[in-house]
């Protein structure tokens, strides 16, 4: 089913979606556009190339309470955070980011042990994808077979036309949601044609392409090459790349207490930080920044492939755009792959 709505009525669409669940959508903030939980439908914007941070926070918040507790004189009272999440809708996710959810599913929802925090949120969320209409020089998602107007993984897929927003149901869940929103208008056959044309047009957008063939094995082979020292020389070892990344998933578990009340939380961590691997004894297996950069690259382009059969990168370009020293992850991988 294809529906449309005037761009000026975006807030009406947002309100209608909010009636069907908790809505997460792009909002223009002080630092740029980012996904936020929407309280005011007027806050939603679709004027952005891509969000500053990835939408992973909808399923994997930077700080996520698992157990709240209260320390008492004779022990502790605990309360598990319930995992029965209300239905959620995430609007305006670019195709590469939609793919990132599937990449992360393999870690969090695959294997013997399922991560319930990811899994339950994921199950309760309807995804409204949003086609790119141009290409940023930092992106390289075409590498992973992701199209600029690729509806794979979205429940509803959306493109912006001249004055109108077109929404197409992709999955049953998406169709159902789409059918239930009365502010949406039916489309004419011309609209259908226009939509298909736009999709085809976007599909022709191509980003840079990283040659990934043989990379996982190559990275293992060049593990001890001095290349990493050179590649990491400009790196500041801050955590920006890992925090804006849609597929970085490393976390810490911390008990944070104030006045006897607190929570056991999981909090994003970063392999770029020195203390990430610091043992209590003071021993640290990764004391050099070349080791940490190598870990990030190898984890994404080699280890993850070994373990989950997919590269843990979708080529969204965020880490490149946000890196204070302009490190291009694609160039780093290419450099390693080109080593003799």
């Amino acid at each position, binding site marked *: 089913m294809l529906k449309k709505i005037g761009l000026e009525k975006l807030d009406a669409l947002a309100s209608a979606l909010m009636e069907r669940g908790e809505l997460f959508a792009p909002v223009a903030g002080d630092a740029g556009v980012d996904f936020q939980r929407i309280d005011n439908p007027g806050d939603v914007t679709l004027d952005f190339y891509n969000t500053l941070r990835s939408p992973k926070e909808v399923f994997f918040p930077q700080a996520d309470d698992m157990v709240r507790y209260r320390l008492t004189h004779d022990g502790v009272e605990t309360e598990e955070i319930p995992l029965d999440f209300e239905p959620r809708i995430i609007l305006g996710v670019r195709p590469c980011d939609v793919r990132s959810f599937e990449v992360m599913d393999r870690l969090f929802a695959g294997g013997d042990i399922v991560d319930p925090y990811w899994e339950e949120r994921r199950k309760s969320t309807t995804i409204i994808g949003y086609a790119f209409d141009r290409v940023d020089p930092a992106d390289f998602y075409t590498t992973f077979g992701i199209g600029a107007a690729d509806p794979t993984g979205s429940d509803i897929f959306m493109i912006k036309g001249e004055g109108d927003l077109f929404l197409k149901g992709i999955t049953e869940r998406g169709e159902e949601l789409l059918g239930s929103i009365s502010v949406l208008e039916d489309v004419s056959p011309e609209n259908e044609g226009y939509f298909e044309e736009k999709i085809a047009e976007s599909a022709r957008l191509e980003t840079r392409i990283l040659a990934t063939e043989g990379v996982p094995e190559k990275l293992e082979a060049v593990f001890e090459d001095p290349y990493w020292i050179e590649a990491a020389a400009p790196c500041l070892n801050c955590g920006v790349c890992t925090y804006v990344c849609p597929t970085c998933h490393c976390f810490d578990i911390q008990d944070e207490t*104030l*006045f*006897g*009340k607190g929570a056991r939380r999981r909090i994003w961590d970063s392999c770029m930080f020195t203390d990430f691997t610091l043992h209590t004894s003071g021993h640290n297996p990764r004391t050099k920044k070349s080791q940490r950069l190598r870990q990030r690259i190898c984890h994404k382009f080699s280890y993850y492939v070994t373990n989950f059969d997919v590269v843990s990168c979708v080529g969204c370009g965020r880490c490149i755009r946000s890196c204070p020293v302009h490190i291009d992850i694609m160039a780093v991988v290419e450099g390693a792959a080109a080593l003799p």
Partner: protein
Amino acid sequence: MVAERNEEKHTVGFEPRILGIACNWCTYTGADLAGTTRVQYPHNIRVARVMCSSRINPSFIFRAFELGADGILVGGCHPGDCHYSTGNYYARRKLAVTKKILEFAGLEPERFRVEWISASEGNRYAEIVREFTEEIRALGPQTRLAMGRDTEG
């Protein structure tokens, strides 16, 4: 989760909570003297003892305000009288910068006060505590760095 900010001043029945940080050799001894000579002063102050005013890490001050202190009074030896010769000269610079930081962050600078009080100045210690307590009482609860949270636990 960040607690909702509550800037409302509950001045009715407000008892300021004041952190005192006193150097072992002068101000703490001065405070002792005030006690042993039964000079009356408000009970609002809780004093932590440090060996020297220069031992005070400005993070103590930031953290104490975050944890709900309404005012902080630091006491050290008079310049020139430091038990370690020069500690309080360093402290003077450190605490001056700390105060400017608090002020620029938006905290009322009056909530942070540094005084040189010698071991013999029990009366003056009591006088300063009295005066400071009343000033803080007039300012009302410190809600900015404490984020207006219920600090009674």
